[in-house]
């Protein structure tokens, strides 16, 4: 399996009135063909901005990509012109967003929103695009698709809307699907439906998926590889099994300790991570997690550790990693 996406040292900053927000601070990773990569982190950690950056979707905001490369099948996405990247978006890379309630245009029919990308990217006729759109809607499990396609999204429930979003993202059979917290706004039973749906579709289309989430449960159930982000940095990167079995970064450990124990009847007291995430306008030179870290030493506050291989396929950015828990 070849590499599909290779991101190198991506840095994104927002230039606001109050100062520069260092949202993404030099992250590098690859996504292989057919891989499912989960990006985990809490809000504001830069996981979404990182994805939006490589697709040049930050225009219209104060966000700027300051450095880095994002090679998609050898082409640097960040160097593409607006016209060129628009040819790629939606055709080669599909995106699904978090909130299906707001991410679909309320005043345009589903038909319109489904077909416009098809017509633009594949140059098919409207008629053909419509047929295809109906097929896609059936595929994502929308009953009576030929009737419902004329409707507007407000008549749909959240789960249905997210199915429409997925159908839309898959319309041109992209090689890569970026799913930005697609189930966060959904109920748990619907979340389960969507997760299973995406899993099936992935097998069917053979695409790679980057799944951005904050839910470690989803990661455990869905992904092959995981990278944990904190304050714009990737702090830990591993395959799923290794991450859960041999959690190395204190932040990841903290996340797991924050979750209620599963399965057992024993009521364990939660161990929250103390404090709050750092202000991205005032990041110091040290490890960004140091102020909250119970094991932080002098060095942690002074110097930011780089990702280092802990074992094969398991990297962690921590001075104390490998010293045992």
């Amino acid at each position, binding site marked *: 399996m070849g590499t599909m996406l290779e991101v190198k040292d991506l840095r994104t900053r927002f230039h606001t009135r109050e100062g520069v927000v260092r949202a993404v601070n030099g992250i590098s990773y690859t996504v292989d063909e057919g891989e499912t990569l989960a990006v985990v982190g809490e809000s504001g950690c830069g996981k979404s901005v990182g994805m939006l950056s490589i697709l040049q979707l930050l225009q219209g905001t104060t966000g700027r990509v300051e450095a880095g490369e994002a090679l998609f099948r050898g082409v640097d996405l960040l160097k593409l012109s607006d016209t060129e990247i628009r040819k790629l978006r939606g055709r080669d890379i599909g995106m699904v967003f978090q909130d299906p309630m707001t991410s679909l245009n309320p005043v345009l029919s589903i038909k319109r929103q489904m077909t416009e990308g098809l017509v633009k990217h594949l140059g098919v006729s409207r008629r053909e695009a419509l047929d295809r759109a109906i097929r896609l809607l059936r595929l994502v499990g929308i009953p009576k698709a030929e009737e419902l396609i004329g409707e507007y999204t407000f008549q749909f*429930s959240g789960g249905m809307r997210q199915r429409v979003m997925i159908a839309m993202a898959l319309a041109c059979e992209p090689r890569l699907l970026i799913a930005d917290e697609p189930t966060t706004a959904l*109920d*748990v039973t619907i979340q389960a439906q969507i997760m299973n749906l995406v899993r099936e579709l992935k097998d069917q289309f053979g695409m790679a998926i980057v799944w951005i989430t904050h839910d470690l449960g989803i990661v455990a*159930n869905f992904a092959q590889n995981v990278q944990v982000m904190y304050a714009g940095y990737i702090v830990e990167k591993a395959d799923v099994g290794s991450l859960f079995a041999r959690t190395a970064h204190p932040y990841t450990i903290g*996340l797991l300790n*924050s979750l209620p124990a599963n399965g057992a009847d024993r009521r364990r*007291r939660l161990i*929250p*991570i103390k404090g709050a995430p750092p202000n991205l306008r005032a990041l110091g030179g040290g490890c960004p997690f140091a102020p909250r870290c119970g094991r932080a030493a002098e060095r942690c506050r002074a110097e930011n550790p780089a990702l280092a291989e802990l074992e094969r396929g398991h990297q962690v950015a921590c001075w104390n990693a490998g010293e045992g828990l």
Partner: protein
Amino acid sequence: MAGAGRALVEVRGLKKHFSVGGGFLQRKKTVRAVDGVSFDVIEGETLGVVGESGCGKSTMGRTMLQLYPPTEGSVSYRGVDLAGLSRQELLPYRKKIQIIFQDPYSSLNPRQTIGSIVCEPLTLHRKDIGKKERLELGRELLRKVNLDQSFVNRFPHEFSGGQRQRIGIARALAVKPEFIVCDEPISALDVSVQAQVVTLLEDLQGEFGLTYLFIAHDLSMVRHISTRIAVMYLGRIVELAGRDELFRAPLHPYTRALLAAIPVPDPEYAARNPIKTLEGEIPSALNPPRGCCFHPRCPMAGPACEEGEPAFRELGPGHYCACHKA
């Protein structure tokens, strides 16, 4: 319906219907948001209420606080029916019962300083004390919820979701309540922060002897914090049992489906127990299905389920369920 201990709140046959539309030449439609629920809240316990969005759990919580006048039924607090009391008559109970909200953004007035938000309840309920003492109490409250006292002069937008949620808790605590309805207090928070808030709630419960009604859609956290758990579906409570009992032996098919849908953060467990999905979606509360409201999605549904509404019965000690098949 009492378990061990004394019932602090008794809810009987509570219904809350909203009419939508209506007006000139148009028939009103009724949303049956809460459609006849009965249960007790035992003093000192945490009663968890779970259910998916639109199941009426928030409406139920707010109706219990008389924020909405109930359509039918009663809510008794220490034996006094709150429904039908005037605003003035309710005031003493407002001190006893408080609420914490889901959205840390819309639950704090963006134009008020933290001090003002936290002290505001005191202006109404502690008229006996002066401004200075009020502020002192406010600082005290902030300390209780682990916030820096210097925050009194700052505005909500300067705070993170978790901090805001703690401010909301401080506001609720200001009147020294006995019973707090926690209306999805952690749903909008990040994982690490959820844990902070939940531990805080636990600590406060221990310190002040509070009773919680903990509304959430996240089963695992409800499991963590609750003494007993009620599962709601379409305006009704379909199952109510002690926490461990419910997880070990869920009786209602909906409860079982909910449990099966939770992604567990453990790859090995996940590999053994792939997520099972429940087909279909929650029907509209505008016109709920006849019979058992769950029957269109229920894998076990039989003809009886389409006919009669199942009774909410006690099937085991303290384990109630509304299902024909259970």
